[in-house]
Each structure stands twice: as structure tokens, then as C-alpha cells.
């Protein structure tokens, strides 16, 4: 990354401490503010150290991609951002995740409240199988105590429109969500997450179970959605990261190797490891 970049990017990881962090800090002419700051996060499954001292800042209304080979900890890191990691038995974590200046792991923080602000779309489409299309989208509102039927109907429609699913299902809202195709189910899950009006949307390899056409629809949606929210997407697919994201974090064996603007990561990577991965020589 050239120091003339006017985007502020921090990239430090202790395994690569020979990097001059200060050199990477651009002049403070930030156009977008930092929405989320991951600070020295470590995560474990039992004795396995899955995420090793990762720190990075995520810009508001941007798309950030986490890339890296299988098992590099990118999904675990994602799950640390909305406090999902701690739900796994034997999982442990330390470090800070600052959302709008507030540490989500602070003692006074409420795990459910955090999840309402930070939505999530999973790798495999997982609509609630006992619920209709409408109820799937409304589930978050209803089960969080929203009673106003008109409001729920409006939010369901708006969320389905945002997830580009409305036209396909508007006449079948009371049919089961499981009756949809895989790509539609994933967009239903997206609508379900959007219905909570999250500020950040985490997407955990959202297209890995989908065919190319369904995948490209999701990618288009990511581009539209970033107008209103901040998106972090985990992907195996480097082309996808290059297409949809503005920032890319490359992880390897639990460490953050490089974090920069996507165009720099792909055209001008600073680390040999990144370059090898990008050019497809391992992974």
C-alpha cells in the first residue's frame, strides 16, 4: 500500500512485526468512519488456537472480505464479531471488539442486543423449517416482542424487496420457506437478517452452497446493501472477494497476514504468502 492512499488502514500482526505499522497509517483524511474495530482478538476451540491476536478496523458502509484457505480462522473471527463464537461448547475468546466505541465483550453488554445490531447470514441456507416465508422474515421481530401487525407486514415486504425476493414470493408468503430453491432460501435468510435492521451484516460464505447464478444475485445484493449497512463477508472464492469488497483481510493459520484495500491486496500484495495465495499456488 502506498502512503499516499487517503484511506486509513491499519494492519499489524505480531507474526509479521517487521512491518512498519506507522508507515501504513495514511494521513487522517478519513471519508468513512470506523464502524467496528477488532482489537487483539484471540479465539480458541478447546486447546486449538483458532484466531491469533487479530486486529483490524472495519469502515462504515463498506464491504470487507475475509479470505484464506480452509481452517485459517476466518469464520471463527467472523463469529467473534457478533458473539456467536462463545455459544459453541468449549469455545473461548479474549480481546476487544469495539462497535461504535463500545466493547461488545464488555460486562454490561447484552449478547442478544449485539446480535440484533449485527446480523448474520450462514454458509448453508437455514430458514426455519416450520415457518412460512412471511413468518421466517417476521420471526426476529415477533420473537423479540414486536406486536404491531402492520409494522411487521411492512418490514417483511421491505426486507424481501431488499433481498430481491419479493417479486418471486409475494403471492406465496404463507407457503413454507423450505419449499424455495437453495438460492431463494439464502435470500430468504438474508431478508430475515435484514428485517432486524442491522447496522452490520456478517456473511459466512453465503454463496458456497449456491450455483453461479444464485451466487451472482447475492453478490449484486451485497453491492446494493452496503449503501445502508456495513458488510463483512467470508469467502473461499477470491474472485468473489475481488468483485464485491473494498477491503480484504487475508488470514492464514489463525493469523491476519495482510489487511488492505482489495485492489492493493490483489494487485500489489505486500506479503509473499498473500501473493502466493492470490495467485493460487496454495490454499
Amino acid at each position, binding site marked *: 500500500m502506498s502512503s499516499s492512499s487517503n484511506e486509513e488502514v491499519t494492519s499489524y500482526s505480531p507474526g509479521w512485526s517487521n512491518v512498519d505499522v506507522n508507515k501504513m497509517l495514511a494521513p487522517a483524511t478519513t471519508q468513512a468512519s470506523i464502524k467496528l474495530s477488532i482489537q487483539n482478538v484471540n479465539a480458541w476451540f478447546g486447546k486449538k488456537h483458532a484466531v491469533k491476536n487479530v486486529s483490524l478496523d472495519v469502515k462504515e458502509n463498506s464491504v470487507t472480505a475475509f479470505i484464506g484457505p480452509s481452517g485459517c480462522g476466518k469464520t471463527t473471527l467472523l463469529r467473534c464479531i457478533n458473539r456467536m463464537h462463545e455459544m459453541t*461448547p*468449549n469455545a473461548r475468546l479474549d480481546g476487544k471488539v469495539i462497535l461504535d466505541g463500545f466493547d461488545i465483550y464488555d460486562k454490561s453488554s447484552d449478547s442478544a442486543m*449485539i446480535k440484533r445490531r449485527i446480523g448474520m447470514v450462514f454458509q448453508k441456507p*437455514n430458514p426455519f423449517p*416450520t415457518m412460512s416465508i412471511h413468518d421466517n422474515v417476521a*420471526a426476529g421481530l415477533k*420473537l423479540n416482542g414486536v406486536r404491531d401487525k402492520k409494522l411487521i407486514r411492512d418490514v417483511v415486504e421491505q426486507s424481501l424487496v431488499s433481498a430481491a425476493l419479493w417479486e418471486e414470493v409475494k403471492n406465496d408468503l404463507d407457503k413454507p420457506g*423450505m419449499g424455495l430453491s437453495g438460492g431463494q432460501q439464502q435470500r430468504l435468510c438474508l431478508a430475515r*437478517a435484514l428485517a432486524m435492521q442491522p447496522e452490520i451484516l456478517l456473511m459466512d460464505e453465503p454463496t458456497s452452497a449456491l450455483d453461479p447464478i444464485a451466487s451472482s444475485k447475492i453478490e449484486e445484493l451485497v453491492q446494493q446493501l452496503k449503501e445502508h449497512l456495513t458488510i463483512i463477508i467470508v469467502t473461499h472464492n477470491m474472485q468473489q472477494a475481488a468483485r464485491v469488497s473494498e477491503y480484504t483481510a487475508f488470514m492464514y493459520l489463525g493469523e491476519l497476514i495482510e489487511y488492505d484495500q482489495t485492489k492493493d491486496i490483489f494487485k500489489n500484495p505486500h506479503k509473499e504468502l498473500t501473493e502466493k495465495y492470490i495467485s493460487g499456488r496454495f490454499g
Partner: protein
Amino acid sequence: MSNSDEHMGKKDKLSGEKSRNASSDYRQIFHEVSLKHASRRRITDKIISILAIVCVIGAIIPLGSILLEVIKNGAAVISIQFLTQPPGSIGSDSGGIGPAIQGTLITVGLASLIGAPIGILSGIYLSEFAPAGSGKGVKERAISFFANTIRLFNDVLTGLPSIVIGIVGYVTIVLAINSFSVWAGAFALSIIMIPIISRVTEETLKLVPNSLREAGYSLGISKSKITLFIVLKYAKDGVLTGVILAIARIAGETAPLIMTILGTSLFFTGLTGPVDALPLKIWRLASQPYESAHAFGWGAALVLILIILILSASIRIIAHGKGIRVRTGTI
């Protein structure tokens, strides 16, 4: 960089050839082995399928012949009078088994009202709130120990002879209120129900894919609501099967009822008084030396079977009537 690429390419090619040769060798070996075993495999296949069919027939014969025998001997006596009247004088073929039907419905109903919620809730606790072997802290260990103790008690309780449970009902309730009573019977039967329902509920809930719970968490829904409206709703059929199994089991119990509701030829008078029940009635009728009593006994047995059948069917229909039907498949 181009140098290293070339180098890598050469290496790949070499190892590729090697692996291709090896794989064709293995293919040859596997082919020979499978040819050698082909006829034996076919015969084993046949034997196993025939064995399976024979076992199915073996299981159906006693079940079918019991049903046929009960219908053959019992259908003749069934009439409105038989179903609604109290028994006539001993040895005559007048009267009916009205009080026994009523008593069975009341006792089993009351037992289910006590046993089903406790059983389901304890199953939910074991599956959702005390997962086995999680965490290493003191609190987690205490929870895990507590849950394992409940599981052990459930298993022991399931295997306990029902007459023992009858004695417990007798000692704790009959002696306390000084009267054989519906309460005591329902209490004893509910103790038989609880471990069955708890176990089935726990096992069923464990089968619910975790991705559904995570989807719920990701929407910021509280754990109790996820458990009730997502997990339990998904596992509804399995939990209901457990409840129906338990109801069918207690509806046929005789031993615990002898010591708790006693049996009477009168209709229901109150929850603190004795009532009759079909299994008790069948047992008493069978031990009388009259033809007509035996015929009534067969009739009562048929009624008991029908009640259980109708109960299971209607619970399933009610449960399926509401909500949408789920297309089973990918999750």
C-alpha cells in the same frame, strides 16, 4: 517466478504418473477381490433380506393374532349399554363397564396433565440447558453432574416395576388422605410417564440441527423463545410420539392402580375417592368363574385398545391440523 512454475509443473507431472500407475494396480487388485467375493456377497444379501422378512412376519403374527382374538371375542358384547352402564349383578349379562371407561379417562387424563409438562420440560432442560460435557468451570461441572444424575434417575425409573410405583403412591397419598383416590392413581401413573417423555424429548431435541438455533441466536432471540418456538416446534412430532407412547403405556397399567384407585363398580364421585379403570376391570372380570364375565372382559379389552388407538390418532391429527406441513429434506 516462471522458473519455479516450470519446476513445479515437472514435479506434478512425475508424481501424477506415479499415482496413476499405482491407482491402476490397485484397481486390478480390487477388481479381482470383488470378483472372488461376488457370489458369496449375493448369497449373504439374499439370506439377510429373507431373515429380515421372516422377523417382520414373526413380529406381526403375535400382534395380529392378539388383535384378532380380542376383536373376535369382544366385539359381540359392545353396545351402548355396555359402554355406559355400571356393572349389573355378578354373573348376569346385564350392565356394562361405564365406570371403568370413565375412570380410565379421568385417571389417565389427570396423569398426563401432571406427567407430560414435567417430562417435556425436563427433556428440554437436559437437551438445551445442560448439554453433556461442556465447559470446565465449576458451574458447568455442577450442571453437567446434575444433568447426568437426572439421566441416570430417568433410566432407573423407566425400568422400575410398576407395582413399586403403586406402593409409593399408596404410602405417600393413600395413607396420607386415608382414602384410595384418583389423585393417588394419577400420581403413580405420572411417575411412570415422566422418565419416558423426558428421555424421548431429550433425544428428539438433540436431533434438531444446530443451524436453526444459531439462526435464532443471530436474530437476537432469547434462548427460551428459540427453544419453544423454533426447536420444540421443529421437534413437535417426536415429542408427541413420546407423549403418546407414555399414555399408551399407562393406560394399560394395572399394578399401580390396585394400590391407589382400588377399583369400584360406581361412577366417579370425586378426585379424593376411588374410581375404576379398564385394566383393573379386565383383571377382575377374568378372575370371575362366569362365561358372561369373560365375555365382558374381552369387550373391555377391546375398548381399552380402541381408546388408546383413538387417543393416539386424535393427538396426531390435532397436532398436524395446526401450522404448515413441513416438506422434509434439506436443512
